[in-house]
């Protein structure tokens, strides 16, 4: 993989232990884990929008939170601009926070209802001690409000979240993220709670900011149609593993993994002339507590063979940028 990366993740794992009652613990010694993320590697390059796509329960949100060190990995390594940040302490992470930020899914819950737009956006500046005095805070906040097109800024500075529409709230969330001039932003389903007619607006805002402010984005979504229009590369996750990585063109047109194929065939297309081809996979995503042996997808896979039950496939390079983990694809 290329050297020009902002974030690089090697063999990352996050197993959440399951809390059990006292008697259950007596009865069996074996500790149980939810294997949310189970050994994944990828990199995000400079000015790239990299997408983690998958169904709920595939571990994509956990991955996003691991990468910016909001939660600690069970094993594996995380590099930020070449520096290993896997085991930094809380204190050492704080200066990194201004370089790595996150935009959350739900703008109705991620903004403090008791604070004004100005205070919400300025909080990061204050915590990081970047500015001197209130005047500078105001200048910075005004400028970022213009960048996210909440104009005129004076109209918005003193408003509370409940006085804003969903789209405006998400702009505030974006503004508070970008005011620190981050180099890397995790965007976790930033548009799924918004109305259709304003989704494109928020996505385009992200793309503009990537151009203008030189940031890289890890975009987390279950919606492959928007991923295709937003992202340079897409990684498809299933039960804590990456099944396929490629450019968005490769994933949409030259996908090799049967799961990717199933996901893409399930996406409804806004064109009555190309109605959805009949679905190929049955059932739902299995539990990550006890994932299937061998290839995790074999229980639902239409082409699974003997080897898929036993041996876990590795992510193998197929073509420039294109990697796939499937015994049958190679």
């Amino acid at each position, binding site marked *: 993989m290329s050297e020009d990366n902002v974030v690089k993740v090697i063999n990352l794992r996050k197993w959440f232990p399951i809390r059990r009652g006292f008697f259950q613990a007596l009865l069996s010694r074996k500790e149980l884990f939810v294997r949310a993320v189970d050994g994944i590697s990828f990199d995000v390059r400079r000015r790239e929008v990299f997408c983690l796509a998958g*169904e*709920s329960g595939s571990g994509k949100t956990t991955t996003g939170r691991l990468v910016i060190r909001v939660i600690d990995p069970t094993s594996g390594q995380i590099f930020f601009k070449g520096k290993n940040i896997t085991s930094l302490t809380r204190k050492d992470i704080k200066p990194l926070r201004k370089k790595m930020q996150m935009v959350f899914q739900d703008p109705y819950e991620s903004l403090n209802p008791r604070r004004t737009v100005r205070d919400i956006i300025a909080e990061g500046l204050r915590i990081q001690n970047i500015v001197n005095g209130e005047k500078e805070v105001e200048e910075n906040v005004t400028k970022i409000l213009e960048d996210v097109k909440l104009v005129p800024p004076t109209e918005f500075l003193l408003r509370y979240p409940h006085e804003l*529409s*969903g*789209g405006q709230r998400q702009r505030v969330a974006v503004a508070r993220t970008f005011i620190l001039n981050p180099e890397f932003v995790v965007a976790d389903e930033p548009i799924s709670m918004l*109305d*259709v*007619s*304003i*989704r*494109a*607006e928020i*996505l*385009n805002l992200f*793309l503009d900011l990537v151009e203008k402010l030189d940031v890289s984005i890890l975009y987390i979504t*279950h*919606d*492959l*149609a*928007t991923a*295709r*229009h937003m992202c340079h590369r897409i990684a498809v996750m299933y039960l804590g593993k990456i099944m396929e990585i490629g450019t*968005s*063109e490769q994933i*949409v047109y030259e996908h090799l993994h049967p799961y990717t194929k*199933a*996901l*893409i*065939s*399930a*996406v*409804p*297309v*806004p*064109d*009555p*002339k*190309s*109605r*959805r081809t*009949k*679905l190929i*996979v*049955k059932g*739902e*995503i299995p539990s990550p507590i006890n994932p299937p042996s061998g290839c995790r997808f074999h229980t639902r896979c239409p082409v699974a063979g003997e080897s898929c039950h036993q041996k876990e496939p590795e992510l193998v390079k197929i073509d420039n940028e294109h990697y796939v983990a499937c015994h049958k694809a190679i």
Partner: protein
Amino acid sequence: MSLLNVENLKTYYFTKRGPVKAVDDVSFQVEEGQAMGLAGESGCGKTTVALSIIKVLPSRGKIVGGKVSLKNLDITTIPEKQMKNVRWKRISLVFQGAMNALDPLYSLGDQIVEAILTHESKINKKEAMNRAEKLLQLVGIERNRLKSYPHELSGGMRQRGLIAMALACNPELLIADEPGTALDVIVQAQVLNIMEDLRRKLNLAVILITHDLSIIADTCDKVAIMYAGKVVEHASVSDLFEEPLHPYTQGLIQAFPNIKSRRTRMRSIPGSPPDLLDPPMGCRFHPRCPYAKSLCMEKEPSAQMAKREHSVACHLYHDT
């Protein structure tokens, strides 16, 4: 004759701040065995249309005008007692949010049986149980799941269970309110496929309410696009996607990413939907419309046929 005929339906919510005109002069028809999509953003009144059709509006909501008829029967005027013979038996509703629509204290089978027994007096409990079993089979759930409680079922299974329940009394019309939202893409596709199969098998008419135009393109025959309590365009799915007439429809279609098209920048509709307590004068879309002229700010456009079976409410298409 159409199976369902909605004519100039007006449903308002009477709030302390004044009447909210959630549905304001909406008309459309659904034919037997046909699937119609009702699309629009949140707050455009699409769910209120569904609630008005089966008359289960919350207490503040009232139908203040218009008519809903099911074949010859005028539903809007019949007494509540007679309405009981319409709900579930002729029209049933699959509610939004599969996660919350089932009672967590009763097993899936019991809930379906309850629905059957309430609406059909001639049937005993055992027969109802048999029917519930068949219904579950119809939507692809194993029979041993009859005894399962909602928390033991996955999201997709709950949604399918709700569809099975809605079909309990052989309705002619099924209204599905956002059946795919909150489900994963693959599960959503499974649910939509099942609805499609059932429609064919049972010659069921379906009204599919959704904000997702691509689902409508995928599964429906006709579509009505709603904006701020009004139907702005009503046409066959193929006509609507081939030649959308209303600027709002055009904007909505462009706002939808197509996974199969070339990678482009998506476009959005500037502004946001209006407050229905105080909707804009004239055409309700004019503040966001790129083609608005002075007439649009003064006079409300009425729905008129622009082409055969394709009506649109927009001043751009008629000279008045």
